[in-house]
């Protein structure tokens, strides 16, 4: 199959969010996040990231998760607010404290920048994670390119899609500012 020469305009969620509709400073909301031991096992298996700290015990009082397990929650918050496609362009993170199994955490995110570079549209979002004891776990900043194709490419295609209603495995719930205010998109 030949790669398309048009950008996706619509998908199963409806019209895609346009670059112009994303506002810097937008609160992406927050979500509760608990990493189960099963999630750690799965992460280790997929990334071939085996270590006794992840599978048995660690100097941090119990099993911990590979740091990159933190990728998903902020990305989910981004996708819940906007109908986003595209690819991760940059990933920045500070591992402040280990991610422990079965510890309740809260991840909060917001849009902090957007720009156009080399004819592509980029959106920057940041997230922080604290656990139930108020301990900061990580801070992250990501840049997401909205399309692989240049922004001057016509936007009229139909994308093959994710099913957005589901979250990652494990305990997960999310709230958005609009829901907290009793409104719905």
């Amino acid at each position: 199959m030949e790669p398309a020469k048009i950008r996706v305009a619509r998908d199963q969620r409806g019209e895609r969010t346009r670059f112009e509709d994303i506002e810097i400073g937008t609160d992406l909301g927050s979500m509760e996040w608990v990493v189960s031991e099963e999630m750690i096992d799965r992460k280790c298996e997929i990334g071939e990231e085996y270590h006794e700290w992840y599978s048995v015990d660690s100097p941090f009082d119990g099993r911990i998760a590979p740091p990159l397990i933190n990728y998903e929650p902020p990305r989910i918050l981004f996708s819940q607010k906007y109908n986003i496609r595209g690819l991760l362009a940059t990933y920045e993170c500070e591992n402040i404290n280990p991610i422990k199994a079965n510890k309740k955490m809260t991840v909060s995110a917001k849009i902090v920048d957007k720009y156009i570079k080399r004819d592509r549209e980029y959106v920057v979002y940041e997230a922080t994670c604290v656990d139930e004891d108020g301990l900061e776990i990580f801070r992250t900043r990501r840049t997401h390119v909205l399309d692989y194709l240049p922004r001057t490419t016509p936007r009229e295609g139909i994308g093959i899609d994710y099913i957005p209603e589901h979250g990652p495995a494990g305990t997960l719930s999310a709230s958005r500012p609009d829901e907290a205010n009793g409104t719905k998109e």
Partner: protein
Amino acid sequence: MVIATRDTKLGTKLPPISMQMSLQKQKERDPLEVPGRRGIHFDKEAAAREGLSAPALSGPMVAATISRMMTMFFGEGWIKGGKILLRFIRPVTPEDFVTAKGIVKAKALEDSGMRLICDVWVENQRGEKVIVGTASGLVS
């Protein structure tokens, strides 16, 4: 096994970590596991509709090789106090074999200890860099 110490010399190479990528790995990584689910990371048609010539594996899955390398090199100093900044510069396909590499470039004294700053990257089987960046960890 932790390798990095305060005495680690600039120019020291980090232990390379390799991984054979595959569509199966990408599918397993997907947290949704919904029957019929498709997407640019593991579906050729979905990828083609976005202008990609092949499925582009997710960046974090590839970047896991760097995290493995950092864990091996720094141990606790990566898990607690590690910092990373990566740029994903080229798509990785399911057929690719990738290797994470790194080299110690600088040292910095902080309140929490000595930080070793490394240039890190992932290259494919053709020697093309697919991820580049810096990562650091604390040493005692």
